[in-house]
């Protein structure tokens, strides 16, 4: 079973040379730490920066240079700043190659819910609805089950949707799954996790074809 860093590490393998990547808050942010050194990737943040670098050294933080999580950041050579409309032109116009974001629920049709629990948590969708409505390549990073142990990979989402039929891949603490017309296709198991454990933790239709390899991390 993977921890959050393990999920990030596995997702980092999906990042290819020349990709512009938007990372959501939470586990997705950790992905930047595990991207291979021998490929060129640029990170975009929807508040208006392309070419994000690591966090600043203590004392060098700048209130005017933050990411969408409001964290102080730095920029790398070749970076640029721009306004919000331009930022979403990059996203809506499909210039960003890969979007990695967290979710509360994903359905077997690729629907995603991650912005609202009615009557309980209403923080808002931020840029998530724009991202999932436009991105060609969306990977969800999340735990396979919620704190109560219930599956987050469902036949249908029960929470208000963020986007419809948009998720392509899900990486959880238990597995890597691809969204196909027939449901969640199991691609890989997390180290030490059995197919049976994944089946038990998945409410949506799970497709198991042949031998399911363990992740190579």
């Amino acid at each position: 079973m993977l921890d959050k860093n393990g999920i990030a590490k596995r997702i980092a393998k999906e990042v290819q040379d020349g990709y512009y990547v938007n990372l959501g808050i939470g586990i997705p942010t950790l992905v930047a730490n595990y991207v291979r050194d021998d490929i060129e990737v640029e990170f975009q943040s929807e508040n208006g920066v392309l070419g994000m670098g690591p966090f600043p050294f203590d004392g060098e933080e700048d209130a005017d240079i933050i990411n969408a999580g409001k964290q102080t950041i730095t920029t790398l050579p070749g970076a640029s700043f721009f306004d919000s409309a331009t930022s979403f032109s990059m996203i809506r116009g499909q210039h960003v190659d890969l979007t990695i974001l967290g979710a509360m629920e994903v359905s077997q049709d690729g629907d995603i819910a991650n912005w609202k629990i009615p009557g309980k948590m209403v923080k808002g969708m931020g840029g998530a609805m724009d991202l999932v409505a436009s991105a060609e390549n969306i990977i969800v990073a999340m735990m396979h089950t919620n704190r109560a142990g219930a599956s987050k990979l469902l036949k249908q989402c029960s929470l208000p949707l963020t986007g419809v039929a948009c998720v392509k891949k899900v990486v959880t603490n238990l597995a890597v799954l691809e969204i196909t017309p027939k449901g969640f296709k199991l691609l890989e198991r997390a180290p030490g996790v059995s197919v049976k454990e994944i089946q038990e933790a998945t409410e949506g239709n799970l497709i198991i074809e042949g031998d399911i390899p363990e992740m190579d991390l």
Partner: protein
Amino acid sequence: MISKKVANVQEALKGVTDNMTFMFGGFGLSGIPENAIGELVKLNVKGLKCISNNAGVDDFGLGLLLQGKQIDKMTSSYVGENDEFERQMLSGELEVELIPQGTLAERCRAAQAGFPAIYTPAGYGTEVAEGKETREFDGKMYVLEYAFKADFAFVKAWKGDAAGNLVFKGTARNFNPNMCGAAKITVVEVEELVPVGTLDPNHIHMPGIFVTRIFQGETYEKRIEQRTVRQRD
């Protein structure tokens, strides 16, 4: 050169009254019009409808207007990090319209650029699109979203000149340029009001034509919401 310069925040906010609709630049606490917000607290105008990506924190930014119960309605994309906001929203004192961030930016730009409405894919199939017109183009579904209508836009820039030309810094730019000229009156505060002619005409982020009034701001706190650093080896 047409001068937009006014002496201070008091003069810049002339005409502000109860029940108006305001736009506020800023993302989180970065690039927010601190001086205008401070003056609105003093003026204690009520019944405001505010368009702003976020709602500040309890004791800073738009949180200050919420503390004074000056806001009736917020249109935002993300309103976490604010307990008073949540309390007012759940109790029904505050009306909240949550919309996608890119939609927020583009509804500002539409108002600025004279477009009545836009078609965006964001929110299609979600409750955000409920009751809204939708339409298919090339096999993809889009939601019709209207240009904002606002009385004042409050914008914060880094540098500006009396002609109203603006330069922003880093990610403090965010929604600020998109809101210039998107309301009936655009009030800009700058960290540094520079002499006309010192800004490179090639590198002005927003030309002065989109600005109604500009003033030299004072004592910026520029609070950091999430101070995240790494240690030196």
